[in-house]
């Protein structure tokens, strides 16, 4: 149409820059879509990072040890009384079971190392089992306990990079004193030696480059800084030279140290850590980590490489070898992590669970519900149905709106100053936590209830009043039941919010380490406790890496609870929704 001659001037004028305008339109639209996509994308990243971080914590590798519960060890007084059983040497029971697994471990240091496959706290768990079932005394009993956190991570493949290499030859081990010579009938070690040599060469080059950069920077400076840099540069050069010198020494064996990957040879129940690889690629020397007997030409063997160098990981080759051996013997098995739910907090990540926090949350929420819902509903009823329109009512309304925007941490300060310091209520208790959270939730409940009450049509009130009901009868017999679904939904959403709240509870001391779950009873309200979000906060700070997964797992539990609450709210809204 643009080329029609009798076109009106306005149409042709508009058509001229139409293209640019539509491009702008498209850009704007794309920006809008990108914003939505960004928000959704971030949510996906957030959830997937937490799910992937948390899932490993739902399984656990457990040691199933057969322990000898000898009467003289665990019942020192010999009367089978609780007092006597509490004094028993349960650690010794566990230790001897471990020693039975690895009889060749004798040195004190090695033994200590061996016992670090599990945490000593398990002795208490064994004691509890015996106390619960005294019939176990004197019997052989299969005791299940979680593997130490780092080794658990190792078995889940989260701690180190490792691989198993293919082998061609038959393997022989010969022993001379402490040293073991490993010989393969094929050049099974050649690729590894080449790889390590390349690594070392790259390292030397890197050091040289760094040295050059330092020297260059030093030129522009003077004084101590320049001298320090030059010194560092020289040091780097010398290290590089050392590395190169070792490499150039032709036909010499390649030494493996803690800065290189560990190479383990496993054969027939023995394990050898290689200390050097000979130039021929078929011979290597090493030391026994497991077993001590020579082997002659066995073709069934494993060449296992841990690529994360020993100096950059938290577990030694020795512990890994023991763990692998136990796994091969079927003593270690992976199972659903019941500790996560059956235990309260613990210093040891493998024994830490959310039970205490869960109970604390339940107790706190009970207080919050019993206070905030009735008071909130009553307030809303008063404001919506009874209150005269005067200054005081206006003040209350402004007040509620402002309270809704007060930062939650300020409610914590209020709790600390009023409930704890002025009223003398106990610190860290669900009672105080519940009180603080109910004050915080109150505005939400009030606002939701008022909206629900407003939605009830005036005609219903008029109808009730017209048949002679009093105002209170109208409200309680007609308006309130009709508004109930809305009130319920609003309250649940408010409570779900309160359940995820952390900051105010830190103020009133619910942030302490509490190893015992509070009792789910009246006295539980004043016992020290913590709640789910605070537990998450505490664990996120944990030094052990295993706490990372626990934190994510705890978050998943909390999110599941909150999703449950919100789903309930949505269900109730759908089920009872009424439109006028």
């Amino acid at each position: 149409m643009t080329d029609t001659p009798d076109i009106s001037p306005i149409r042709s004028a508009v058509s001229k820059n139409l293209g640019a305008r539509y491009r702008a339109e498209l850009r704007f639209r794309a920006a809008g879509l990108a914003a939505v996509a960004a928000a959704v994308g971030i949510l996906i990243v957030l959830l997937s990072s937490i799910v992937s971080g948390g899932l490993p914590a739902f399984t656990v590798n457990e040691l199933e040890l057969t322990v000898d519960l000898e009467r003289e060890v665990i019942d020192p007084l010999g009367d089978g009384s609780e007092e006597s059983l509490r004094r028993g040497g349960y650690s010794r029971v566990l230790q001897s079971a471990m020693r039975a697994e690895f009889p060749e471990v004798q040195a004190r240091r090695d033994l200590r190392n061996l016992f670090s496959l599990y945490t000593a706290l398990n002795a208490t768990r064994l004691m509890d089992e015996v106390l619960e079932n005294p019939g176990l005394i004197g019997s052989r009993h299969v005791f299940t306990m979680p593997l130490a956190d780092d080794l658990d991570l190792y078995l889940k493949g989260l701690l180190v990079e490792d691989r198993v290499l293919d082998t061609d030859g038959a393997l022989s081990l010969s022993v001379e004193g402490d040293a073991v010579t490993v010989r393969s009938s094929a050049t099974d070690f050649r690729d590894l030696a080449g790889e390590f040599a390349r690594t070392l060469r790259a390292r030397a080059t890197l050091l040289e480059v760094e040295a050059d950069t330092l020297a260059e920077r030093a030129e522009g400076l003077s004084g101590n800084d320049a001298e320090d840099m030059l010194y560092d540069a020289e040091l780097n050069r010398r290290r590089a030279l050392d590395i190169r010198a070792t490499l150039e020494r032709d036909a010499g064996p390649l030494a493996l140290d803690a800065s290189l990957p560990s190479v383990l040879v496993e054969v027939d129940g023995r394990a050898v850590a290689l200390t050097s690889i000979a130039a021929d690629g078929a011979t290597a020397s090493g030391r026994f980590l497991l077993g001590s007997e020579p082997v002659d030409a066995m073709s069934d063997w494993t060449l296992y490489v841990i690529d994360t160098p020993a100096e950059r990981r938290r577990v030694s080759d020795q512990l890994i070898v023991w763990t692998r051996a136990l796994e091969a013997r079927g003593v270690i098995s992976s199972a659903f992590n019941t500790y996560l739910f059956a235990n309260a907090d613990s210093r040891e990540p493998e024994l830490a669970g959310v039970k205490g926090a869960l109970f604390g949350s339940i107790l706190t929420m009970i207080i919050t519900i019993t206070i905030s819902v009735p008071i909130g509903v009553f307030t809303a009823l008063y404001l919506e149905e009874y209150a005269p329109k005067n200054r005081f009512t206006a003040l209350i309304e402004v007040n509620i709106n402002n309270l809704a925007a007060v930062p939650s941490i300020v409610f914590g300060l209020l709790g600390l100053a009023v409930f704890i310091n002025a009223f003398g209520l106990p610190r860290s208790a669900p009672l105080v936590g519940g009180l603080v959270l109910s004050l915080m939730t109150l505005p939400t409940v009030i606002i939701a209830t008022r909206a629900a009450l407003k939605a009830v049509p005036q005609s219903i009130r008029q109808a009730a009043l017209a048949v002679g009901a009093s105002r209170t009868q109208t409200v309680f017999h007609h308006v309130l039941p009709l508004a109930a679904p809305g009130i319920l939904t609003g309250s649940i959403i408010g409570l779900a919010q309160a359940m995820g709240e952390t900051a105010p509870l830190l103020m009133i001391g619910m942030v302490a380490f509490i190893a015992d779950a509070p009792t789910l009873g009246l006295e539980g309200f004043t016992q020290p406790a913590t709640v789910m979000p605070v537990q998450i906060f505490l664990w996120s700070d944990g030094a052990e890496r295993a706490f990372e997964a626990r934190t994510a797992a705890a978050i998943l539990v909390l999110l599941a609870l909150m999703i449950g609450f919100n789903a309930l709210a949505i269900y109730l809204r759908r089920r009872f929704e009424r439109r006028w």
Partner: protein
Amino acid sequence: MTDAIHNPADELPIKVAARDVTVSYSGKQALHNVSIDIPDRSVTAFIGPSGCGKSTFLRCLNRMNDTIEGAKVGGSLTIDGQEINDKSIDPVVLRASVGMVFQKPNPFPKSIYDNVAYGPRIHGLALSRPELDEIVENALHKAGLWAEVSDRLAHPGTSLSGGQQQRLVIARAIAVNPEVILMDEPCSALDPIATARIEELIDELRENYCIIIVTHSMQQAARVSQQTAFFHMGNLVEYGPTEDIFTNPRDTRTQDYITGRFG
């Protein structure tokens, strides 16, 4: 309804022609096979009871129905012989040449000047500020508002009275110099004095534009229009010179409506 197609003012060229236009909203038919020829440089009034389809038809003329979800328009509609529902016709271009004034005055929350300059600005019609000033002044003159607002062009458009706001909206529409101006009950929210002002203005604008006005008031239709079309239940019942429709309606429905038996 082909018998409705005739040009009541034979001396004037046809501006808008509709053939078998149907409109449905989410499957519910709102307009049945409307065919009509509307002449240029005159005022054509659409009358009829509420819900009769007159506004719906009006909104077809600048494709405002596009903005409503689920609206479907069928049939053929031409302006100057060009099919406006054609894919090659851009609604933006169409709307620039077909101005519209709504029931309730809807000045934008901007100054009086910016309100009038809105169209020229978005369409890039003025190359310089003096040019834009001229367009704005012209449009305000044509809308008969210049004398009242020339000293306060920077005031917000919403600060004017209802009648002034409606004239401001008309000025906004004619600032881009359209070919057709659609008015959807432009006086229904105004008092009688403001209404009279607007009607005067419509009469003046007739010189240059094709004006189509939807109105509820038969008196208004009689006062301002040269042609009148009567709609009922989504059908165009009768169309002809205003005088004929009011003095000598052919259809009984038209007669019942203008004598006040329903509506």
